[in-house]
């Protein structure tokens, strides 16, 4: 090995060990017999069974899933519009403000966004008598901060692609609408898929914003996990973590495989 190769190997080995050792331990201890997450007492699947019968956790997971589906879909539609406007419309009134508004939620501290959105919902509650805090308000909050991520992905993809394809379609007599639906949309579809997945994951994972805008009745999965974890480590959370990690890993492997085969098919 040359000096550089050895350096590269060390940097990566150390980095990946740092990233994955904690995760690996969480997975291992989900099969621990003991309640203590720090002492190994033999193999057991009892925490897996316990979680499968934990109604509160399952309800929370179901609510989180519904919110994530709704908010990711809405965020993708709005993010597509925002990304399209940013890339294709060089001049309109308030463009600078618009561009800032799109990017800002990405870097805004979550506690600030949380308190500000809650104040909006409290205000609308006072003036308009609604909406009740819960599914709807959480979904709106998630859309607002995840649409930025979709817009960025869409904008990058649009900036990247060959405009002559659209011009060719127009020259051949396609209306702007047909051109968009048959040329532009299929070409940016991968960006929309990854944008949707990003928004879905962000929604499923969000704690802070959700904690501010949710009502007393609606507990999402991260809220349940947080209130359980605050009291200390809990093997059922290890089980949940293992499931989440398994899903994320298989989704990522699948998407890598899909993009690879689509690259291979390219002439």
């Amino acid at each position, binding site marked *: 090995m040359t000096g*550089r190769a050895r350096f*590269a190997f060390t*940097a*990566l080995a150390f*980095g990946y060990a*740092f*990233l994955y050792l*904690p*995760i690996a*331990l*969480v997975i291992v201890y989900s099969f621990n017999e003991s309640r203590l997450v*720090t*002492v190994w007492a033999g193999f057991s699947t009892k925490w897996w069974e316990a979680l499968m019968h934990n109604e509160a956790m399952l309800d929370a997971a179901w609510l989180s899933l519904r919110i994530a589906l709704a908010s990711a879909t809405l965020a993708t539609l*709005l*993010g597509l*519009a*925002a990304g399209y406007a940013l890339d294709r419309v060089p001049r309109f009134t*308030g463009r600078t403000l*618009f561009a*800032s*508004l799109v*990017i*800002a*939620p990405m*870097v*805004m*501290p*979550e*506690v*600030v966004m949380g*308190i*500000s959105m809650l*104040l909006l919902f*409290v*205000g609308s509650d*006072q003036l308009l008598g609604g909406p009740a805090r819960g599914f709807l308000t959480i979904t*709106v909050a998630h859309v*607002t901060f995840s*649409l930025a991520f979709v817009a*960025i992905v869409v*904008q990058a993809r649009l*900036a990247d692609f060959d405009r002559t394809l659209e011009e060719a379609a127009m020259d051949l007599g396609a209306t702007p609408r047909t051109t968009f639906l048959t040329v532009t949309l299929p070409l940016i579809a991968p960006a929309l898929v990854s944008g949707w997945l990003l928004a879905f994951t962000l929604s499923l*994972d969000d*704690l*802070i914003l959700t*904690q501010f805008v949710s009502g007393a009745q609606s507990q999402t999965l*991260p809220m349940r*996990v947080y209130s359980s*974890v*605050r009291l*200390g*480590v809990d093997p059922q959370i290890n089980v*949940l*973590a293992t499931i*989440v*990690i398994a899903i*994320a*890993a298989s989704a*990522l492997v699948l998407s*890598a495989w899909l993009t690879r085969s689509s690259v291979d098919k390219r002439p």
Partner: protein
Amino acid sequence: MRLVIALPFLWLGVFFLLPLVLVLGLSLGTNAPDLAPPVELGVSFASFRLLFTDDLYLAAWLSSLRIAATSTLVTLLLGYPMAYAIARAQPRRRPMLLMLVVLPFWTSFLIRVYAWMGLLAENGILNQVLRATGLVADPGTILGTEWAVHLGIVYAYLPFMVLPLYVTLEKLDWSLLEAASDLGARPLAAFLTVTLPLSLPGIVAGCLLVFIPAVGEFVIPDLLGGTRTLMIGKVLWDEFFTNSDWPLASAVAICLLALLVGPILIFQRHQERSLERI
């Protein structure tokens, strides 16, 4: 076409901009525990005065900035060699190596922070290893200290550092390095005068992506930092949820925003420029 602009514009105006205006308005109100919501609107700077005169709040601001800055630096020192190694790996290996960096990001943030709780506890796995190997006879408890908070931030935000660094390093023209070494520069000199300056955009983006959220971080100091760690995100949370002092919490939010508006603007300008370059 007008609708394409109007819809997201309107959405962000109502659900992002307007709420920030409300926070500003509320930060000038006074706390009224008997009312629901517990605020009396008005023009009072009492909350801001408290924030700038009370030692506790000043200490929280300073330690937030300090913890965020040192964690960002450590993340850079850890992330740069990784991004460099990936950028110089064989092209067909890069997607896999990059995916391994991104994968933890796709799992839950909360769970990644939780993973450290079991590791760093008094009888946690790290201390067991330290005792068993005899490296440290009596390791103190890391959980509940600022060390744990630093560790948590570095761990949680490492992918955000590696990605922008990789993007700039991958585009780097490596023949410049060969030229430098042909002209007699040692590897270190070539790195300092060629690679480092050329990867500066990635360094700036990565550091901002770590620093900005780290300053206002809540989950990590709350779960790993214990009661002794003061951070401003936690102060905001406690003022709001525990003390129900909405004007004070709003004032904290406004100050946090004012503090971060510089870094955020730099990041936005940077983001727009890098998109134009594509």
